[in-house]
């Protein structure tokens, strides 16, 4: 097999259920080059790379290797063509040793005594790239950086000439990032091709020779990193100089509803997810938190609604301390929550529509009497909700899992705001919805603002943030880079702030 020295993707298009994820994308990469792939979440970066790795088939377009068109039907074929991929979520067996993981993927692993026989090969190999690791350790004993190195070894051992790294730095410490960069530069010197997917501008500028910017599934631009700067890349990524939309009528904000002071919260992995966050949200106000997902938005929403423990700091609703009290208590004080993964956290998929319509209110007097639910009232309430919020379903007696995402989201929103909350915490409320449902959700949020509630909105969709919010906070790595009024001119650089390279 000759080495893969030049790879080309030509006119690649791919859509899912009629929604285009990639449209007419062409690029090429040559031996010894590091290509950056930059774009917001949902811009189509991962889809494009999954096509290259054989996980998806493109609807149109072709892939050429060394000038010859090839078809890649599955990961095995892509490995055969010298393509290796390091997924964002590592594909490793946590309970197995490093050796066993490598033996699983290595194509020339012998049948008998596999660990014994490939050990030496791995050792000489990892020496040449300066990886030092104990091959008998179990994966769960390794740091994220070491796990990533195992993934890189797996790809290189299988003869990868092209290595795709999907958001490789998102799980690493700054020191590990430095080590990764030097490893990548070493690979480049040996003639490997690398595609580096990221939305962090600093890294792209630091590592890549060339950068390709994707926006909404199309190529928004491409440039040599030495000819460009972060500001113009950020604008390319966001897609426009920020335009202000003033459909939102001006309303004077009222008294303070939510106050958060010096909040520190731990993430799932025991590392700090929020660092010293302070802000207030007022009546008649939508407070937006913009940022790339995974920078602490989820933890903030969970801390405010009482699902996640607060390490230090204070959260107050109407001057009443709610820090580390129960979610029920917080709900009863008037805090509603539209959670980010609506199927997992917003509903009980196997229950009926009317059960889901009162998931949080079943304890209220009007729906229950001692140990029994008043199903007549519950069903009546469900029908009213469905009317008011345009939920279309053929019966309230059907399981909610049969509804479309948009209808589920409308029912959740209806449930959450039917009790006239003081504060609504909405996480990515329009994620994955079609245009009509999106418009519906946004109008309801504005209505809520008009009727005197406060809204804490988390969104990755900048258009949504600019359209709805009175004030915007930009979150990066658990910290607010800025809290600005939505007509502040400095928001032009929101892309830079989201990427963590500018703080106001």
């Amino acid at each position: 097999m000759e080495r893969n020295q030049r790879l080309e993707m030509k006119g690649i298009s791919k859509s899912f259920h009629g929604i285009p994820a990639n449209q007419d994308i062409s690029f090429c990469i040559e031996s010894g080059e590091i290509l950056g792939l930059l774009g917001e979440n949902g811009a189509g970066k991962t889809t494009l790379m999954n096509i290259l790795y054989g996980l998806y088939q493109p609807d149109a377009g072709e892939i050429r290797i060394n000038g010859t068109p090839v078809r890649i039907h599955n990961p095995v074929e892509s490995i055969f063509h010298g393509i290796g991929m390091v997924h964002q979520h590592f594909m490793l067996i946590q309970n197995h040793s490093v050796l066993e993981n490598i033996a699983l993927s290595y194509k020339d692993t012998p049948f008998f005594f596999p660990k014994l026989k490939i050990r030496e090969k791995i050792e000489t190999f990892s020496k040449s790239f300066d990886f030092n690791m104990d091959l008998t350790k179990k994966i769960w004993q390794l740091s994220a950086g070491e796990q990533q190195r195992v993934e890189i070894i797996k790809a290189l051992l299988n003869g990868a000439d092209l290595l795709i790294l999907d958001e490789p730095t998102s799980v690493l410490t700054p020191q590990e990032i430095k080590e990764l960069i030097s490893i990548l530069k070493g690979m480049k010197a040996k003639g490997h091709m690398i595609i580096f997917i990221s939305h962090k501008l600093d890294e792209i500028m630091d590592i890549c020779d060339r950068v390709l910017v994707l926006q909404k599934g199309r190529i928004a631009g491409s440039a040599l990193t030495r000819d460009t700067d972060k500001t113009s890349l950020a604008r390319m990524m966001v897609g426009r100089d920020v335009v202000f939309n003033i459909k939102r009528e001006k309303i004077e904000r009222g008294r303070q509803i939510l106050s958060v002071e010096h909040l520190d919260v731990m993430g799932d992995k025991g590392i700090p997810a929020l660092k010293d966050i302070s802000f207030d949200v007022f009546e008649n106000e939508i407070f937006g938190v913009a940022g790339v997902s995974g920078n602490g938005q989820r933890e903030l929403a969970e801390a405010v609604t009482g699902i996640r423990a607060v390490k230090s700091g204070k959260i107050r609703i109407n001057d009443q301390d709610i820090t580390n009290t129960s979610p029920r208590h917080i709900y009863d004080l008037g805090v509603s929550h539209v959670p980010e993964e609506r199927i997992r956290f917003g509903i009980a998929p196997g229950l009926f529509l009317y059960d889901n319509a009162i998931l949080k209110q079943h304890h209220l007097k009007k729906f229950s009497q001692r140990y029994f639910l008043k199903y007549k009232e519950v069903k009546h309430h469900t029908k009213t909700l469905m009317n008011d919020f345009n939920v279309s379903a053929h019966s309230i007696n059907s399981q909610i899992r049969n509804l479309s995402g948009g209808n589920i989201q409308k029912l959740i929103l209806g449930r959450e705001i039917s009790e006239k909350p003081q504060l609504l915490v909405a996480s990515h409320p329009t994620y994955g919805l079609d245009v009509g449902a999106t418009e519906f959700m946004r109008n309801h949020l504005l209505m809520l603002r008009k009727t005197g509630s406060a809204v804490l909105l988390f969104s990755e969709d900048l258009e949504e943030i600019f359209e709805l919010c009175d004030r915007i906070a930009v979150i990066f790595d658990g910290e607010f880079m800025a809290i600005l009024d939505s007509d502040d001119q400095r928001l032009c650089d929101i892309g830079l702030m989201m990427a963590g390279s500018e703080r106001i």
Partner: protein
Amino acid sequence: MEDMIVSTLERAMVAGTPLLLATTGEVICERSGILNLGVEGVMSMGAVVAFIVTMTTGEPWLGVICAVGVGMAISIVHAFASVSLQANQVVSGLALTMLGLGFSGMMGKPYVGKPLLIKMDDLAIPFLSDIPYLGKILFSQSPFFYLAIFLALTAWFFLEKTRLGIQIRSTGENPRATETQGINVSRIKYLSILIGGGFSALAGAHLSISYSKSWIEGMTAGRGWIAIALTIFALWNPARAIWAAFLFGFIFVVQYLLQPLGISPNFLSMLPYIATLIILLLISFKDPRRLNAPAMLGEPYKRGER
């Protein structure tokens, strides 16, 4: 007294043999992530098929081969439901047990109470069988005894020291990651279920043509369920299953040793089942992460889903 102890231990080995065979099979199956509660039913099928074939042809080894073949074939029910249809493994395993128990009872009706005249000779290993006490306990047993130990060690070797073993274990730990390495996860699971079924049927064959030399409905007497408990007790390791199985074999026969002491035989025959409960209780106090259970045991795996 001395004779009594030796003969009890000797019988403990015989009683432990079907437990070891079935446990080894269940270990292989569970390491690939599939919980198979059909052991009892497949064992029963193995017993009846081995008995009928041996009785009609006079060839005990042909009976064994047919039993294993039927055990594998009937396990396809569980494989199809749990792997291809991603059904609930508990439900489909229980279905397999009911199917096996019912079908074997029906097939065996005409053979109930008929003695098997063909004998399978014990295999005395030269020299070793002359060792006092030990020789009689360990080295002049039925061929099934040696086969069970040999197969358990082979299973251990395959799981730990071969590429296929790594693939089976990886499938049980993280089928998605395994699939991205270009391995056909469904094929691995089918293979493991079929091997497990073959082992269960082999255990049944031992019961009917070597252990009791007769067929009666319900003769497996919960041994399949005990094997599932032993799988946990052995921490999913076939080598550990060896001593776990013979320990339980001893509990099965210790009643004969205790009966002269005046303990009710009805109580004594409960012993193996009580011991199973106690062991499962003790295991549940252990730190679950150190139990070594396959991470995705019992979880249906759907391809291409996030």
